[in-house]
Every structure is written in C-alpha cells, then in structure tokens.
C-alpha cells in the first residue's frame, strides 16, 4: 500500500510528521506493508496534512488528517472515511488551475530521479542539448517569460547579455531568498520538486556558457535547504550535474548557500555580496550583474520560479507557454493566497484573473467571515488594494497602472478589523530594520517615517504632509526598491483608507 504524506514545511507545521509516524506505527503493529512517500504539498494548505492513498483506481486524498484518523484510513472502507476528499485532481480548487511550473509538486517523490523522469522530467534539458546556442536563447525569448522575483525583467534578454559576455567563468545564481511576507512558492517548489529547479539551472548554464551555479536559500527555510542539498546529491549521482550534463553537454555544478536573516539580500546585488562573504549592501547599477556579477564575472541571477519554469518551456515549446496569459504577462503565475482567507495556498493560473475573483472566489473571502478591507499584493513593498480596485487583472502592467505591483505574487487578505495606520507604520518599521544602510533616505527616512506615523496616531495633523514628503524623498532618493518602494504600502494605506488616519486624530482631539 503506497501512501503519500507531504514533507512540505506547511504540512509539517500542521502536524504531517505525527500523521506519518502514526501510519508507520500502525503498519508495524499490524504487519500491513506500507510504502510511505514524503511528497511535496498539493498547495491546498487548509486541507493539510493532506494524505493520499494509491488505490487500484488511482490516488485518493484525505484531509486535514490527525493521527487519530489513521487507523480508519488503513483498515476500514476508505470511501466512507469522514475526511475523504476523492482524487486531488477532482477537487474544484485544484481542477481550476493551470499547473505548468508546479505540475509535479505534490505528485512525485521529490528526490526520486526515476519518478521525476516518469513525469516528464529531463525532457526539457534533453531538447535543449539538441539545440544550437541561438535556438536555446530564442526559445526563452519567444516564451515571453519574465522574472518572477518581482521586477518582471524578460529572462531571455538577461540570458542573452550573459551569453554574449566573454569571460573566463560565468555563474548561474538562483535567488531563493523569498523574503516577502505572503509568499511561499519558491519554498514549495524546492521542497516538492527540487529537480526541476536543478534542470532549469542546467539549461541556463548551457544557454549562457556557465559551468557553476549557486542556490542562495534564506536560513528561515531549513526544509528547503535540506531538500535542495539532497536533490543536488541525487542529480550528481545520476549524471544530471557534474563534468558533463547528462553525459552529453558541458560541465555544470551546483551548490546551496544559506542566507543569514537579511531581507535586503533578496536584492540581487546584495545577494551577490552576501555570496562573496561580504555585508549584504546593495551595489550601484551599472555595472549590471549580467556583465559584472559574482566575483566580477558575468552572472545570471534569477528567481526560483523563473528558473523552474524553463524546463516546462523547453519540454513543451515556447509557443505553448506564450499562449497563456494577458498582454505582456505571458504564461502562468503561481499565486500565493495568504493571510485571513478561507482557502489559502498555492494556485497556479494564467495571468489575467481579476484580483476580486482571486480574493472572493478562489480564496473564498476571509477565514473570520468578516468583510475584506484591504489586500496587500507583492510583499512588504507592495500596495494595499481596497475592494474598489478588485477589477484589476493580475498582470505586471495592469497592477503598475493601479499604483501597485505584483512582486512575487503574494496576496495577503485583511478583514475589516485591520488598522491601516498600523500597517503603514509597520511598512516603515520593516524598512528601518532591514535597510542595508547605504542611502540616507532609506536608512534615516524609514526611522522618521515610524515617528511621523506615531505623531499622526497621536493626533498631530501637521504630520500628514510630512509623511507624504518623506515618501517622495524615499521614492526618489533610494538606490534600491527597499527604500524606493516602501512608499507603496504607506501611501496606498493613506490614500485608500484616510479614515484610519483621521480617526486617530479625532480620538485624540
């Protein structure tokens, strides 16, 4: 009997390890042969721990499970189990998705190369190996893939710059710093299908002529660090990595590096400094990392999801990928639905779904049942959207046009109990804590920002224009988006929820 119990960090945080232990204990007690697979998560976090049993007619799911549910799972008619969910593919929340990047996450044994290949793994790299260098670059450019780390820069253009550069050594650096609140797609991908990321990095290396890569993972992700490290071992022992890619291509080696709790190290040049063993201060651009990156060598820096999408593009063709999407946002985006929601988790879909549909329909509104007041999209540097902007379609330009950004596609829902002045204060506080210290408007401005919000809260009306000025200064005078975009959450809170800033005043008067 084959049973899948996720090893995903969210599933573990909700008790998956205890369920796995209960299954093994029950099997040992009764002599029932059980083949336990620790898979990734299928992404429906409210149903975790979600366990799947392989039956003659396919896999069928149960959740959320506790150890007490286990005996009935193993010995009774499972069709009548109170936690039975049926096949995952039939659960509407799952069936509505377009799973390309996340196709194998939760489906396969993440560290089994045979399982990976059985589900289409390595076919992208094999096709890439058979192409000319120009064809490879064209494939990425034609797909329309843009960076999923936040800035949305066309991946093919970046790779083209590195491919053209002449240097003794080039690097592929995967940005797995995923510091944005409300995001966990990188974590889930690395825990649930790490070989895809490795394959994507190998294709990147092949395309630009890099022979060495690093995966920089934040220290807050011990499970992802463990899983990636193991996956690199598996990939090396199967000849995917090493002196010759699959025995047919050039050399490519990978190493995991662990961050040290600095949000700013997600910024690509700060990340490179950190990899070099320095303070994670931001570097001025130019020079671009593509030309002068890690140890001064040409370097591709890409987000986990950008790189992990590349194997699908090569396996299925750039045209197939480009057919999904809206406007200049091509393909799919793994939405991370978080905060106060009924149905939170990872929902991969083509660009273009409206924010309202995501919040009200997919997320099912708030978990508390109270009305939605604000939705922060794109992490701590993203704007707060009021329900009046729910018609905005999910796309880079579309969100930009509404004074926001999609960032890494984290969507954090708040009910009407949220105090937006407190959220504005937090945005400034976070910037002050995490500033790399290089520019005054960010380092000092954020501290002043906290003080200014406190003055507004204390009823000082003269502080409001000060806050607006401060935001202007930070936006115009900051080297990177930490200082430059902190005004997004602050100003959106102030603009869309003025009552929360006025009420404080009235209360004080």
């Amino acid at each position, binding site marked *: 009997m084959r049973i899948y119990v996720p090893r995903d*960090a*969210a599933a573990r945080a909700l008790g998956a390890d205890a369920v796995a232990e209960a299954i093994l204990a029950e099997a040992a007690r009764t002599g029932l042969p059980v083949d336990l697979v620790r898979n990734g998560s299928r992404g429906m976090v409210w149903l*975790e721990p979600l366990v799947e049993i392989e039956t003659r007619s396919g896999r069928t799911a149960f959740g959320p499970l506790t150890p007490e549910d286990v005996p009935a799972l193993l010995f009774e008619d499972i069709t009548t189990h109170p936690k039975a969910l049926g096949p995952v593919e039939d659960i509407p929340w799952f069936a509505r998705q377009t799973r390309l990047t996340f196709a194998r996450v939760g489906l396969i044994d993440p560290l089994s190369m045979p399982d990976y290949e059985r589900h289409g793994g390595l076919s992208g790299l094999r096709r890439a190996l058979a192409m000319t260098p120009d064809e490879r670059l064209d494939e990425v450019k034609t797909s329309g893939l843009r960076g999923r780390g936040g800035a949305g820069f066309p991946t093919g253009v970046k790779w083209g710059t590195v491919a053209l550069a002449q240097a003794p050594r080039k690097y592929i650096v995967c940005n797995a710093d995923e510091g944005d609140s409300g995001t966990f797609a990188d974590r889930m991908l690395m825990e649930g299908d790490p070989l895809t990321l490795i394959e994507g990095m190998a294709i990147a290396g092949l395309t630009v002529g890099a022979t060495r890569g690093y995966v920089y993972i934040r220290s807050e992700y011990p499970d992802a660090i463990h899983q990636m490290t193991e996956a690199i071992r598996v990939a090396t022992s199967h000849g995917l990595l090493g002196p010759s890619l699959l025995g047919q291509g050039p050399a490519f080696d990978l190493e995991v590096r662990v961050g040290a*709790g*600095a949000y700013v190290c997600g910024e690509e040049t700060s990340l490179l400094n950190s990899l070099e063993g320095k303070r994670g201060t931001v570097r001025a651009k130019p020079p671009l990392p593509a030309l002068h990156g890690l140890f001064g060598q040409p370097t591709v820096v890409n987000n986990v999801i950008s790189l992990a999408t590349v194997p699908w593009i090569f396996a299925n063709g750039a045209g197939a990928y480009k057919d999904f999407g809206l406007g200049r946002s091509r393909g799919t985006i793994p939405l991370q639905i978080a905060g106060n*929601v009924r149905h939170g988790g990872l929902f991969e879909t083509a660009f273009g779904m409206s924010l309202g549909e995501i919040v009200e329909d997919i997320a099912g509104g708030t978990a508390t049942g109270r009305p939605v007041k604000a939705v922060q999209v794109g992490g701590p540097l993203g704007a707060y959207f009021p329900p009046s902007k729910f018609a905005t379609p999910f796309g880079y330009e579309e969100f930009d046009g509404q004074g926001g950004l999609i960032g890494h596609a984290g969507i954090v829902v708040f009910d009407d109990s949220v105090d937006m002045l407190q959220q504005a204060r937090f945005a400034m506080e976070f910037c002050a804590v995490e500033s790399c210290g290089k520019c005054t408007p960010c380092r000092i401005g954020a501290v002043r920002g906290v003080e200014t919000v406190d003055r507004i809260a204390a009823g000082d009306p003269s502080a409001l224009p000060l806050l607006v000025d401060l935001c202007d200064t930070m936006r115009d005078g900051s080297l990177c988006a930490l200082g430059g975009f902190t005004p997004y959450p602050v100003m959106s809170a102030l603009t869309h929820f003025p009552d929360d800033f006025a009420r404080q005043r009235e209360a004080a008067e």
Partner: protein
Amino acid sequence: MLDAADLSARLHEIIGAHLGLEGPLLPILHAIQAEWGHIPDPAIPVLANALNLGRAEVHGVVSFYHDFRTTPAGPTVVKLCAAEACQAQGGRDLIAATLRAFGLSTYGTTPDGKVTVEPVYCLGLCACGPAALVNDRLLGRATPATLREAAR
C-alpha cells in the same frame, strides 16, 4: 566560558573544512554558530587571519546579518512571525500574549536565561498563520497553548 585552546582547535577545523569554497565566510559563520550557539569574540581575529581580512571587516559582516548572535540565546528559542500575512491572522495578539506569558516586555531572553523570544519576518507559512518556530519545530496556526507545549 569557552576554553581558549578547545575553541582554537575546533575553530581551525571548521575553517579548514570550508577553505575550498568560493566566498567561505558565511558558511564558516553558520558553522561556528551551529557549534557554539553564537559567534564568540575570540573567533573574529582568527577568522580575519585565516581569510586574509581585516578584523573590522569580519566584525562588519557578523553585525550586518540578523542571524548571527554575539551572545548565546536561551536553550529554547521561540521565533514568532511578525510579518503582514501573520498579522492578518492574529499575529500581533499572539506576539503580545507570548511575551506576556514569558514575563517579557519586549523581545529578548527571560531573566532565568531559559527562553529567547524573537521576531522573524516570514517563515513561508503565510497560509496557516500565525506561524512560529520553536527551536527546530515549525508551528502553523499557533496559539498560546501550542507555543507553550512546544517550548516545554
């Protein structure tokens, strides 16, 4: 207190094991912290020497990153997610209640030295907040009761 000779011997082992890496300083600091729970002061000049860096430079790196401690934490470390998605799920109240339960007025270590409570900005558990990490154990939808149980 750490014995100076023990420290020096183990430190050189750790450094030696990492010298083949490109940019070895962060991996070495992580290994030192895994060994002693913090970065002991006497390690700084040794590191500076071995890596051909200035002491100020090594110190600058240690102080830049939130992870690196210059004094040991308590045997139980409770990290509470203080970021937005957890705030939306009652995280602020949980932080206040937890600090109160440990008799702390702000983040830090209890007077008996047993428990250190710290903020963390996102554990990637944003769809099952409020999230916490108690030593190596992740908690989703954490409550004062589950935190107390995990911190025991």
